[in-house]
Protein backbone atom coordinates (compact mmCIF):
# COMPACT_ATOMS: atom_id res chain seq x y z
CA UNK A 1 0.00 0.00 0.00
CA UNK A 2 1.33 3.37 -0.95
CA UNK A 3 -0.20 6.45 0.62
CA UNK A 4 0.91 9.99 1.21
CA UNK A 5 0.64 10.09 4.99
CA UNK A 6 1.78 13.68 5.29
CA UNK A 7 -0.93 15.08 3.10
CA UNK A 8 -4.00 15.44 5.22
CA UNK A 9 -7.14 15.51 3.16
CA UNK A 10 -10.38 13.61 2.80
CA UNK A 11 -8.76 11.61 0.02
CA UNK A 12 -5.68 10.50 1.94
CA UNK A 13 -7.73 9.53 4.96
CA UNK A 14 -10.07 7.67 2.66
CA UNK A 15 -7.16 5.83 1.11
CA UNK A 16 -5.85 4.82 4.50
CA UNK A 17 -9.23 3.75 5.85
CA UNK A 18 -10.02 1.58 2.86
CA UNK A 19 -6.50 0.28 2.52
CA UNK A 20 -6.67 0.91 -1.19
CA UNK A 21 -3.50 -0.21 -2.97
CA UNK A 22 -1.81 1.80 -5.69
CA UNK A 23 -2.76 5.16 -4.24
CA UNK A 24 0.11 7.30 -5.43
CA UNK A 25 -0.98 10.56 -3.91
CA UNK A 26 -3.44 13.27 -4.51
CA UNK A 27 -3.08 13.71 -8.27
CA UNK A 28 -5.87 11.96 -10.16
CA UNK A 29 -7.17 11.62 -13.68
CA UNK A 30 -10.66 11.83 -15.15
CA UNK A 31 -11.86 8.32 -15.97
CA UNK A 32 -12.83 7.83 -19.62
CA UNK A 33 -14.20 4.60 -21.07
CA UNK A 34 -11.48 4.22 -23.71
CA UNK A 35 -8.89 3.94 -20.91
CA UNK A 36 -10.74 1.36 -18.76
CA UNK A 37 -9.01 -1.72 -20.16
CA UNK A 38 -5.54 -0.19 -20.05
CA UNK A 39 -6.05 0.98 -16.45
CA UNK A 40 -7.08 -2.50 -15.36
CA UNK A 41 -4.23 -4.23 -17.17
CA UNK A 42 -1.43 -1.79 -16.35
CA UNK A 43 -2.57 -0.30 -13.01
CA UNK A 44 -0.86 3.06 -13.62
CA UNK A 45 0.59 5.12 -10.79
CA UNK A 46 -2.37 7.48 -10.58
CA UNK A 47 -3.68 8.49 -7.16
CA UNK A 48 -7.38 8.26 -7.99
CA UNK A 49 -9.94 8.51 -10.76
CA UNK A 50 -13.02 10.63 -11.19
CA UNK A 51 -15.98 9.23 -13.13
CA UNK A 52 -18.78 11.25 -14.70
CA UNK A 53 -21.80 9.94 -12.81
CA UNK A 54 -24.04 10.02 -15.90
CA UNK A 55 -21.77 7.60 -17.76
CA UNK A 56 -22.51 4.90 -15.21
CA UNK A 57 -26.17 5.40 -14.24
CA UNK A 58 -27.32 2.53 -16.47
CA UNK A 59 -28.38 -0.73 -14.86
CA UNK A 60 -25.49 -2.80 -16.21
CA UNK A 61 -22.96 -3.30 -18.94
CA UNK A 62 -19.24 -3.55 -19.45
CA UNK A 63 -18.40 0.05 -18.59
CA UNK A 64 -20.17 -0.12 -15.25
CA UNK A 65 -18.52 -3.46 -14.51
CA UNK A 66 -15.10 -2.01 -15.34
CA UNK A 67 -15.78 1.00 -13.10
CA UNK A 68 -16.44 -1.37 -10.21
CA UNK A 69 -13.23 -3.27 -10.98
CA UNK A 70 -11.26 -0.02 -11.06
CA UNK A 71 -12.96 0.90 -7.79
CA UNK A 72 -11.34 -2.16 -6.20
CA UNK A 73 -7.90 -0.71 -7.09
CA UNK A 74 -8.27 3.06 -6.78
CA UNK A 75 -10.31 5.64 -4.90
CA UNK A 76 -13.11 6.99 -7.12
CA UNK A 77 -15.05 10.24 -7.00
CA UNK A 78 -18.33 10.81 -8.83
CA UNK A 79 -18.72 14.03 -10.77
CA UNK A 80 -22.19 14.91 -12.09
CA UNK A 81 -22.87 16.94 -15.20
CA UNK A 82 -26.57 16.29 -15.71
CA UNK A 83 -28.50 16.95 -12.51
CA UNK A 84 -29.28 20.53 -13.62
CA UNK A 85 -29.12 21.77 -10.04
CA UNK A 86 -29.90 25.38 -10.90
CA UNK A 87 -32.94 24.65 -13.08
CA UNK A 88 -36.32 25.89 -11.88
CA UNK A 89 -37.85 22.56 -12.97
CA UNK A 90 -38.26 20.00 -10.19
CA UNK A 91 -35.23 17.72 -9.86
CA UNK A 92 -35.68 14.56 -11.91
CA UNK A 93 -36.57 11.78 -9.50
CA UNK A 94 -35.28 8.95 -11.73
CA UNK A 95 -31.93 10.71 -12.09
CA UNK A 96 -31.62 11.20 -8.33
CA UNK A 97 -32.57 7.59 -7.63
CA UNK A 98 -30.05 6.30 -10.17
CA UNK A 99 -27.37 8.56 -8.69
CA UNK A 100 -28.23 7.35 -5.21
CA UNK A 101 -27.84 3.72 -6.31
CA UNK A 102 -24.51 4.50 -7.96
CA UNK A 103 -23.23 6.35 -4.88
CA UNK A 104 -24.19 3.40 -2.68
CA UNK A 105 -22.43 0.96 -5.00
CA UNK A 106 -19.25 2.92 -5.66
CA UNK A 107 -18.86 4.58 -2.22
CA UNK A 108 -17.02 7.51 -3.81
CA UNK A 109 -14.64 9.82 -1.99
CA UNK A 110 -16.53 12.86 -3.27
CA UNK A 111 -19.82 13.50 -5.03
CA UNK A 112 -19.80 16.73 -6.97
CA UNK A 113 -22.00 18.81 -9.28
CA UNK A 114 -21.92 22.28 -10.81
CA UNK A 115 -23.14 25.77 -10.06
CA UNK A 116 -25.22 25.77 -13.23
CA UNK A 117 -28.53 24.88 -14.84
CA UNK A 118 -29.18 22.85 -17.98
CA UNK A 119 -32.88 22.12 -18.38
CA UNK A 120 -36.28 23.81 -18.42
CA UNK A 121 -39.83 22.60 -19.04
CA UNK A 122 -38.51 19.03 -19.23
CA UNK A 123 -36.06 19.77 -22.05
CA UNK A 124 -32.37 19.21 -21.33
CA UNK A 125 -29.74 21.26 -23.13
CA UNK A 126 -27.01 18.98 -21.71
CA UNK A 127 -24.69 21.88 -21.02
CA UNK A 128 -23.50 23.76 -17.94
CA UNK A 129 -25.34 27.08 -18.33
CA UNK A 130 -24.56 30.04 -16.07
CA UNK A 131 -26.95 31.18 -13.35
CA UNK A 132 -27.34 34.87 -12.57
CA UNK A 133 -25.70 35.51 -9.22
CA UNK A 134 -28.81 37.06 -7.68
CA UNK A 135 -30.58 36.61 -4.34
CA UNK A 136 -33.32 34.63 -6.06
CA UNK A 137 -30.81 32.26 -7.68
CA UNK A 138 -28.98 31.85 -4.36
CA UNK A 139 -32.18 30.93 -2.54
CA UNK A 140 -33.09 28.51 -5.31
CA UNK A 141 -29.65 26.92 -5.57
CA UNK A 142 -29.40 26.60 -1.77
CA UNK A 143 -32.73 24.77 -1.62
CA UNK A 144 -31.66 22.44 -4.42
CA UNK A 145 -28.24 21.63 -2.95
CA UNK A 146 -29.92 20.92 0.39
CA UNK A 147 -32.49 18.69 -1.32
CA UNK A 148 -29.80 16.62 -3.04
CA UNK A 149 -27.58 16.42 0.06
CA UNK A 150 -30.58 15.24 2.10
CA UNK A 151 -31.52 12.71 -0.57
CA UNK A 152 -28.02 11.26 -0.88
CA UNK A 153 -27.32 11.58 2.83
CA UNK A 154 -23.93 13.17 2.22
CA UNK A 155 -22.20 16.39 1.34
CA UNK A 156 -22.00 17.64 -2.25
CA UNK A 157 -19.06 19.54 -3.66
CA UNK A 158 -20.15 22.36 -5.97
CA UNK A 159 -17.88 23.37 -8.85
CA UNK A 160 -17.48 26.83 -10.36
CA UNK A 161 -18.16 26.70 -14.13
CA UNK A 162 -16.69 28.51 -17.13
CA UNK A 163 -19.01 31.09 -18.63
CA UNK A 164 -19.11 33.19 -21.76
CA UNK A 165 -21.68 35.76 -20.67
CA UNK A 166 -22.91 37.72 -17.71
CA UNK A 167 -26.48 38.79 -17.09
CA UNK A 168 -27.70 42.36 -17.09
CA UNK A 169 -28.88 42.42 -13.47
CA UNK A 170 -27.72 43.18 -9.95
CA UNK A 171 -25.31 40.30 -9.46
CA UNK A 172 -22.84 39.66 -6.67
CA UNK A 173 -19.41 38.36 -7.73
CA UNK A 174 -19.20 34.61 -8.27
CA UNK A 175 -16.98 34.07 -5.21
CA UNK A 176 -19.48 35.83 -2.95
CA UNK A 177 -22.27 33.68 -4.39
CA UNK A 178 -20.28 30.49 -3.73
CA UNK A 179 -19.34 31.59 -0.22
CA UNK A 180 -23.01 32.29 0.55
CA UNK A 181 -23.99 28.89 -0.91
CA UNK A 182 -21.49 27.16 1.38
CA UNK A 183 -22.83 29.13 4.34
CA UNK A 184 -26.46 28.28 3.52
CA UNK A 185 -26.06 24.58 2.72
CA UNK A 186 -22.85 23.27 4.26
CA UNK A 187 -21.76 22.05 0.83
CA UNK A 188 -18.09 21.84 -0.07
CA UNK A 189 -16.42 23.42 -3.09
CA UNK A 190 -14.67 21.88 -6.04
CA UNK A 191 -12.39 24.63 -7.31
CA UNK A 192 -11.85 24.38 -11.05
CA UNK A 193 -8.75 26.49 -11.57
CA UNK A 194 -9.11 26.43 -15.35
CA UNK A 195 -12.72 27.64 -15.14
CA UNK A 196 -11.62 30.37 -12.75
CA UNK A 197 -8.88 31.50 -15.14
CA UNK A 198 -11.23 31.39 -18.15
CA UNK A 199 -13.82 33.50 -16.32
CA UNK A 200 -11.26 35.96 -14.99
CA UNK A 201 -10.03 36.56 -18.54
CA UNK A 202 -13.47 36.54 -20.17
CA UNK A 203 -15.09 38.81 -17.60
CA UNK A 204 -12.12 40.91 -16.50
CA UNK A 205 -11.69 40.21 -12.80
CA UNK A 206 -8.67 39.25 -10.70
CA UNK A 207 -8.58 35.47 -10.16
CA UNK A 208 -6.73 36.00 -6.87
CA UNK A 209 -9.67 37.98 -5.52
CA UNK A 210 -11.80 34.90 -6.20
CA UNK A 211 -9.28 32.63 -4.42
CA UNK A 212 -9.38 34.90 -1.37
CA UNK A 213 -13.15 35.30 -1.53
CA UNK A 214 -14.15 31.65 -1.05
CA UNK A 215 -13.94 29.99 2.36
CA UNK A 216 -10.66 28.06 2.70
CA UNK A 217 -12.14 25.19 4.67
CA UNK A 218 -14.86 24.53 2.05
CA UNK A 219 -12.49 23.74 -0.83
CA UNK A 220 -11.89 20.00 -0.93
CA UNK A 221 -10.92 19.23 -4.51
CA UNK A 222 -9.28 20.98 -7.45
CA UNK A 223 -9.82 20.49 -11.19
CA UNK A 224 -7.30 21.31 -13.91
CA UNK A 225 -8.03 21.21 -17.65
CA UNK A 226 -7.10 22.78 -20.94
CA UNK A 227 -8.97 25.57 -22.72
CA UNK A 228 -8.88 27.21 -26.14
CA UNK A 229 -8.68 30.88 -27.14
CA UNK A 230 -11.13 32.00 -29.85
CA UNK A 231 -11.58 35.30 -31.61
CA UNK A 232 -15.11 36.67 -31.54
CA UNK A 233 -15.98 40.08 -33.00
CA UNK A 234 -12.29 40.97 -32.85
CA UNK A 235 -11.95 40.07 -29.16
CA UNK A 236 -10.34 37.07 -27.47
CA UNK A 237 -12.66 34.75 -25.63
CA UNK A 238 -11.53 31.64 -23.80
CA UNK A 239 -13.57 28.48 -24.28
CA UNK A 240 -13.41 25.65 -21.76
CA UNK A 241 -12.85 22.84 -24.27
CA UNK A 242 -11.11 20.21 -22.09
CA UNK A 243 -9.35 19.21 -25.30
CA UNK A 244 -5.74 20.16 -24.64
CA UNK A 245 -2.96 20.50 -22.07
CA UNK A 246 -3.34 22.64 -18.96
CA UNK A 247 -2.04 26.09 -19.95
CA UNK A 248 1.02 27.67 -18.26
CA UNK A 249 -1.17 30.45 -16.83
CA UNK A 250 -3.49 27.87 -15.24
CA UNK A 251 -0.52 26.00 -13.74
CA UNK A 252 0.60 29.32 -12.19
CA UNK A 253 -2.86 29.98 -10.81
CA UNK A 254 -2.91 26.40 -9.47
CA UNK A 255 0.28 27.16 -7.60
CA UNK A 256 -1.42 30.18 -6.03
CA UNK A 257 -4.43 28.01 -5.15
CA UNK A 258 -2.17 25.45 -3.43
CA UNK A 259 -0.54 28.26 -1.43
CA UNK A 260 -3.96 29.37 -0.24
CA UNK A 261 -5.75 26.03 0.27
CA UNK A 262 -2.85 23.62 0.84
CA UNK A 263 -2.29 20.34 -1.01
CA UNK A 264 -5.72 19.11 -2.09
CA UNK A 265 -6.84 16.20 -4.29
CA UNK A 266 -6.30 17.48 -7.82
CA UNK A 267 -7.79 16.08 -11.00
CA UNK A 268 -6.71 16.32 -14.63
CA UNK A 269 -9.80 16.55 -16.87
CA UNK A 270 -9.69 15.87 -20.61
CA UNK A 271 -13.02 15.27 -22.34
CA UNK A 272 -12.61 16.00 -26.05
CA UNK A 273 -9.95 14.69 -28.44
CA UNK A 274 -8.98 12.40 -25.58
CA UNK A 275 -5.31 11.39 -25.79
CA UNK A 276 -3.46 8.28 -24.65
CA UNK A 277 -3.64 7.64 -20.92
CA UNK A 278 0.11 8.32 -20.68
CA UNK A 279 -0.51 11.97 -21.65
CA UNK A 280 -2.95 12.35 -18.77
CA UNK A 281 -0.51 10.61 -16.42
CA UNK A 282 2.18 13.14 -17.41
CA UNK A 283 -0.18 16.03 -16.57
CA UNK A 284 -1.01 14.35 -13.25
CA UNK A 285 2.73 13.97 -12.59
CA UNK A 286 3.17 17.70 -12.94
CA UNK A 287 0.31 18.29 -10.48
CA UNK A 288 1.86 15.72 -8.13
CA UNK A 289 5.19 17.47 -8.22
CA UNK A 290 3.51 20.78 -7.36
CA UNK A 291 1.54 19.09 -4.58
CA UNK A 292 4.82 17.79 -3.13
CA UNK A 293 6.31 21.29 -3.23
CA UNK A 294 3.21 22.67 -1.57
CA UNK A 295 3.46 20.03 1.15
CA UNK A 296 7.14 20.81 1.68
CA UNK A 297 6.39 24.55 1.88
CA UNK A 298 3.62 23.91 4.42
CA UNK A 299 5.99 21.79 6.53
Amino acid at each position, binding site marked *: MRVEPHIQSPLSSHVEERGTPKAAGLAGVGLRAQHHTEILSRLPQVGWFEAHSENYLAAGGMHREQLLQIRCRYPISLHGVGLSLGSTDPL*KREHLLALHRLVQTVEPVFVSEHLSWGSIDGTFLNDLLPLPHTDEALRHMSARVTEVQDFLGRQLLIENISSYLRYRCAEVPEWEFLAALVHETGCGLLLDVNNLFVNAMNHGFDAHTFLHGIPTSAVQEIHLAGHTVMQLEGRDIRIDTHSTHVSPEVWRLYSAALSRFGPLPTLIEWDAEIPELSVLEAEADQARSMLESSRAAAA
Partner: protein
Amino acid sequence: MLPLRDLQQRFASRLLETDSASVLDWIRADGISALARVEIYRNNLHAGFTKTLGLEFPVIQRLVGQAYFTQLALAFLAYHPSRSGDLHHVGAPFPGFLQKQFANTDYWYLADVARLEWAYQECLVAEDSDCLDPQTLRNIPVDAYSNLRFTIRSACRLVDSPFPILRIWEANQSAAALPDFIDLTTGPDHVVLVRTPAGLHLSRVPAGDFQLLTGFAAGQTLEHALEAALSRDAQFDLGAALRRCMGLGVFGHTTFY
Protein backbone atom coordinates in the same frame (compact mmCIF):
# COMPACT_ATOMS: atom_id res chain seq x y z
CA MET B 1 -34.32 41.33 -13.32
CA LEU B 2 -36.55 38.71 -14.87
CA PRO B 3 -37.66 35.92 -12.57
CA LEU B 4 -35.16 33.04 -12.86
CA ARG B 5 -37.69 30.74 -14.52
CA ASP B 6 -38.50 33.31 -17.23
CA LEU B 7 -34.81 33.83 -17.87
CA GLN B 8 -34.22 30.08 -18.23
CA GLN B 9 -37.21 29.68 -20.57
CA ARG B 10 -36.04 32.53 -22.78
CA PHE B 11 -32.47 31.22 -22.82
CA ALA B 12 -33.57 27.71 -23.79
CA SER B 13 -35.92 29.07 -26.46
CA ARG B 14 -33.06 30.98 -27.99
CA LEU B 15 -30.86 27.86 -28.05
CA LEU B 16 -33.63 25.72 -29.53
CA GLU B 17 -34.59 28.38 -32.07
CA THR B 18 -38.14 28.69 -30.87
CA ASP B 19 -37.37 32.17 -29.62
CA SER B 20 -40.49 34.06 -28.59
CA ALA B 21 -39.29 36.55 -26.00
CA SER B 22 -35.62 37.29 -26.41
CA VAL B 23 -33.09 36.64 -23.69
CA LEU B 24 -30.60 38.93 -25.41
CA ASP B 25 -31.87 42.06 -23.62
CA TRP B 26 -30.79 40.46 -20.35
CA ILE B 27 -27.21 39.69 -21.38
CA ARG B 28 -24.34 42.16 -21.15
CA ALA B 29 -22.47 42.96 -24.34
CA ASP B 30 -19.10 43.79 -22.65
CA GLY B 31 -17.15 44.07 -25.92
CA ILE B 32 -18.78 41.06 -27.58
CA SER B 33 -22.46 41.21 -28.55
CA ALA B 34 -25.04 39.30 -26.53
CA LEU B 35 -26.01 37.47 -29.70
CA ALA B 36 -22.46 36.19 -30.28
CA ARG B 37 -22.19 35.14 -26.63
CA VAL B 38 -25.41 33.10 -26.77
CA GLU B 39 -24.30 31.60 -30.09
CA ILE B 40 -21.39 29.93 -28.25
CA TYR B 41 -23.93 27.99 -26.19
CA ARG B 42 -26.09 27.24 -29.24
CA ASN B 43 -23.06 25.89 -31.09
CA ASN B 44 -22.19 23.78 -28.04
CA LEU B 45 -25.71 22.36 -28.00
CA HIS B 46 -25.62 21.55 -31.72
CA ALA B 47 -22.14 20.05 -31.63
CA GLY B 48 -22.77 18.03 -28.45
CA PHE B 49 -26.13 16.72 -29.67
CA THR B 50 -24.78 15.76 -33.11
CA LYS B 51 -21.74 14.07 -31.58
CA THR B 52 -23.86 12.07 -29.14
CA LEU B 53 -26.23 10.94 -31.88
CA GLY B 54 -23.24 10.01 -34.07
CA LEU B 55 -21.80 7.86 -31.28
CA GLU B 56 -25.14 6.08 -30.94
CA PHE B 57 -25.75 5.67 -34.69
CA PRO B 58 -22.30 5.33 -36.29
CA VAL B 59 -23.59 3.22 -39.19
CA ILE B 60 -26.27 5.76 -40.14
CA GLN B 61 -23.61 8.48 -39.90
CA ARG B 62 -21.31 6.53 -42.20
CA LEU B 63 -24.10 5.71 -44.67
CA VAL B 64 -25.34 9.28 -45.12
CA GLY B 65 -22.03 11.12 -44.60
CA GLN B 66 -21.10 13.64 -41.90
CA ALA B 67 -22.64 16.72 -43.56
CA TYR B 68 -26.07 15.21 -44.11
CA PHE B 69 -25.97 13.47 -40.73
CA THR B 70 -25.47 16.87 -39.07
CA GLN B 71 -28.53 18.20 -40.95
CA LEU B 72 -30.55 15.18 -39.83
CA ALA B 73 -29.36 15.54 -36.23
CA LEU B 74 -30.38 19.21 -36.06
CA ALA B 75 -33.77 18.48 -37.63
CA PHE B 76 -34.19 15.67 -35.07
CA LEU B 77 -33.17 18.02 -32.24
CA ALA B 78 -35.99 20.41 -33.19
CA TYR B 79 -38.57 17.63 -32.72
CA HIS B 80 -36.91 15.52 -30.05
CA PRO B 81 -34.62 17.54 -27.78
CA SER B 82 -33.03 15.63 -24.91
CA ARG B 83 -35.38 14.86 -22.03
CA SER B 84 -32.69 13.70 -19.62
CA GLY B 85 -29.44 14.78 -18.04
CA ASP B 86 -28.14 11.36 -19.03
CA LEU B 87 -27.28 11.50 -22.74
CA HIS B 88 -27.75 7.74 -23.17
CA HIS B 89 -31.45 8.38 -23.87
CA VAL B 90 -31.07 10.93 -26.66
CA GLY B 91 -31.30 8.49 -29.57
CA ALA B 92 -34.41 6.52 -28.53
CA PRO B 93 -36.82 8.36 -30.89
CA PHE B 94 -34.31 8.55 -33.79
CA PRO B 95 -35.41 5.37 -35.67
CA GLY B 96 -39.04 6.57 -35.60
CA PHE B 97 -37.93 10.00 -36.79
CA LEU B 98 -36.05 8.45 -39.72
CA GLN B 99 -39.04 6.29 -40.55
CA LYS B 100 -41.18 9.42 -40.98
CA GLN B 101 -38.39 11.28 -42.73
CA PHE B 102 -37.82 8.58 -45.34
CA ALA B 103 -41.30 7.08 -45.70
CA ASN B 104 -42.03 6.23 -49.36
CA THR B 105 -38.44 6.86 -50.42
CA ASP B 106 -35.55 4.59 -51.44
CA TYR B 107 -33.98 5.29 -48.05
CA TRP B 108 -36.71 3.63 -45.99
CA TYR B 109 -34.18 0.97 -44.92
CA LEU B 110 -32.26 3.57 -42.89
CA ALA B 111 -34.95 3.51 -40.18
CA ASP B 112 -34.49 -0.27 -39.78
CA VAL B 113 -30.69 0.07 -39.63
CA ALA B 114 -31.24 2.72 -36.93
CA ARG B 115 -33.53 0.34 -34.99
CA LEU B 116 -30.70 -2.21 -35.04
CA GLU B 117 -28.21 0.40 -33.82
CA TRP B 118 -30.52 1.53 -31.04
CA ALA B 119 -31.09 -2.09 -29.96
CA TYR B 120 -27.28 -2.39 -29.81
CA GLN B 121 -27.08 0.69 -27.57
CA GLU B 122 -29.79 -0.68 -25.26
CA CYS B 123 -28.01 -4.03 -25.00
CA LEU B 124 -24.75 -2.31 -24.04
CA VAL B 125 -26.21 -0.85 -20.85
CA ALA B 126 -28.99 -3.34 -20.00
CA GLU B 127 -29.05 -4.97 -16.60
CA ASP B 128 -26.65 -7.86 -16.12
CA SER B 129 -28.33 -11.24 -15.62
CA ASP B 130 -27.35 -14.90 -15.68
CA CYS B 131 -28.01 -17.18 -18.64
CA LEU B 132 -30.38 -20.07 -18.15
CA ASP B 133 -28.59 -23.18 -16.91
CA PRO B 134 -29.57 -26.03 -19.30
CA GLN B 135 -29.67 -28.33 -16.28
CA THR B 136 -32.78 -26.50 -15.13
CA LEU B 137 -34.74 -27.84 -18.08
CA ARG B 138 -33.82 -31.45 -17.23
CA ASN B 139 -35.57 -31.06 -13.89
CA ILE B 140 -38.86 -29.98 -15.45
CA PRO B 141 -41.46 -32.75 -15.83
CA VAL B 142 -42.39 -33.48 -19.45
CA ASP B 143 -46.08 -32.74 -18.89
CA ALA B 144 -45.14 -29.18 -17.84
CA TYR B 145 -43.32 -28.35 -21.10
CA SER B 146 -46.26 -26.73 -22.83
CA ASN B 147 -46.58 -24.18 -20.02
CA LEU B 148 -42.91 -23.25 -19.89
CA ARG B 149 -42.31 -19.54 -20.09
CA PHE B 150 -38.81 -18.80 -21.28
CA THR B 151 -37.57 -15.41 -20.20
CA ILE B 152 -35.52 -13.36 -22.63
CA ARG B 153 -32.54 -11.78 -20.81
CA SER B 154 -32.64 -8.01 -20.40
CA ALA B 155 -29.39 -7.70 -22.41
CA CYS B 156 -31.07 -9.25 -25.48
CA ARG B 157 -32.99 -7.53 -28.30
CA LEU B 158 -34.83 -8.82 -31.37
CA VAL B 159 -34.89 -6.77 -34.57
CA ASP B 160 -36.25 -7.82 -37.96
CA SER B 161 -36.53 -6.04 -41.26
CA PRO B 162 -37.41 -6.75 -44.89
CA PHE B 163 -33.93 -5.36 -45.68
CA PRO B 164 -30.52 -7.02 -45.13
CA ILE B 165 -29.83 -4.82 -42.08
CA LEU B 166 -27.25 -7.09 -40.47
CA ARG B 167 -25.21 -7.20 -43.67
CA ILE B 168 -25.39 -3.40 -43.90
CA TRP B 169 -24.37 -3.10 -40.24
CA GLU B 170 -21.45 -5.53 -40.63
CA ALA B 171 -20.20 -3.81 -43.78
CA ASN B 172 -20.11 -0.48 -41.95
CA GLN B 173 -18.13 -1.43 -38.88
CA SER B 174 -15.00 0.69 -38.72
CA ALA B 175 -12.66 -2.23 -39.36
CA ALA B 176 -14.69 -3.59 -42.26
CA ALA B 177 -13.94 -2.81 -45.88
CA LEU B 178 -17.05 -1.40 -47.54
CA PRO B 179 -18.43 -3.66 -50.24
CA ASP B 180 -19.19 -1.95 -53.52
CA PHE B 181 -22.82 -2.88 -53.40
CA ILE B 182 -25.38 -4.43 -51.07
CA ASP B 183 -28.54 -5.58 -52.80
CA LEU B 184 -31.44 -4.28 -50.68
CA THR B 185 -33.65 -7.10 -51.94
CA THR B 186 -31.51 -9.74 -50.19
CA GLY B 187 -33.49 -9.44 -46.93
CA PRO B 188 -35.33 -10.13 -44.80
CA ASP B 189 -33.02 -10.26 -41.80
CA HIS B 190 -34.03 -11.57 -38.39
CA VAL B 191 -31.42 -10.43 -35.90
CA VAL B 192 -30.83 -11.41 -32.29
CA LEU B 193 -28.53 -9.17 -30.25
CA VAL B 194 -27.16 -10.61 -27.01
CA ARG B 195 -24.67 -9.27 -24.53
CA THR B 196 -22.89 -11.96 -22.55
CA PRO B 197 -19.70 -11.66 -20.49
CA ALA B 198 -17.86 -12.50 -23.73
CA GLY B 199 -19.22 -9.41 -25.49
CA LEU B 200 -22.15 -8.18 -27.55
CA HIS B 201 -22.98 -10.36 -30.54
CA LEU B 202 -25.41 -9.96 -33.41
CA SER B 203 -26.69 -13.13 -35.06
CA ARG B 204 -28.97 -13.77 -38.01
CA VAL B 205 -31.51 -16.45 -37.06
CA PRO B 206 -34.20 -18.33 -39.04
CA ALA B 207 -37.66 -16.72 -39.20
CA GLY B 208 -39.16 -19.50 -37.03
CA ASP B 209 -36.57 -18.95 -34.24
CA PHE B 210 -37.27 -15.23 -34.37
CA GLN B 211 -41.01 -15.81 -34.10
CA LEU B 212 -40.52 -18.17 -31.15
CA LEU B 213 -38.35 -15.62 -29.32
CA THR B 214 -40.82 -12.83 -30.11
CA GLY B 215 -43.52 -14.95 -28.46
CA PHE B 216 -41.37 -15.55 -25.38
CA ALA B 217 -40.55 -11.85 -25.20
CA ALA B 218 -44.30 -11.15 -25.15
CA GLY B 219 -44.70 -13.57 -22.22
CA GLN B 220 -46.24 -16.45 -24.21
CA THR B 221 -45.99 -20.05 -23.06
CA LEU B 222 -43.95 -22.52 -25.08
CA GLU B 223 -47.19 -23.95 -26.53
CA HIS B 224 -48.38 -20.58 -27.89
CA ALA B 225 -44.97 -19.43 -29.05
CA LEU B 226 -44.50 -22.75 -30.87
CA GLU B 227 -47.86 -22.40 -32.63
CA ALA B 228 -46.83 -18.99 -33.92
CA ALA B 229 -43.41 -20.29 -35.01
CA LEU B 230 -45.04 -23.19 -36.90
CA SER B 231 -47.43 -20.82 -38.63
CA ARG B 232 -44.36 -18.90 -39.82
CA ASP B 233 -42.42 -22.01 -40.86
CA ALA B 234 -44.21 -25.34 -41.22
CA GLN B 235 -40.86 -27.20 -41.04
CA PHE B 236 -39.93 -25.48 -37.76
CA ASP B 237 -37.81 -27.78 -35.54
CA LEU B 238 -38.33 -26.75 -31.92
CA GLY B 239 -35.45 -28.78 -30.46
CA ALA B 240 -32.93 -27.35 -32.92
CA ALA B 241 -34.28 -23.82 -32.39
CA LEU B 242 -34.00 -24.06 -28.60
CA ARG B 243 -30.45 -25.38 -28.86
CA ARG B 244 -29.50 -22.49 -31.16
CA CYS B 245 -31.08 -19.93 -28.83
CA MET B 246 -29.45 -21.49 -25.75
CA GLY B 247 -26.14 -21.35 -27.58
CA LEU B 248 -26.60 -17.63 -28.15
CA GLY B 249 -27.28 -17.04 -24.43
CA VAL B 250 -30.73 -15.58 -25.04
CA PHE B 251 -32.60 -17.12 -22.12
CA GLY B 252 -32.63 -16.05 -18.51
CA HIS B 253 -34.64 -17.39 -15.59
CA THR B 254 -37.44 -19.67 -16.78
CA THR B 255 -40.63 -20.70 -14.97
CA PHE B 256 -43.32 -23.30 -15.50
CA TYR B 257 -46.80 -23.63 -14.00
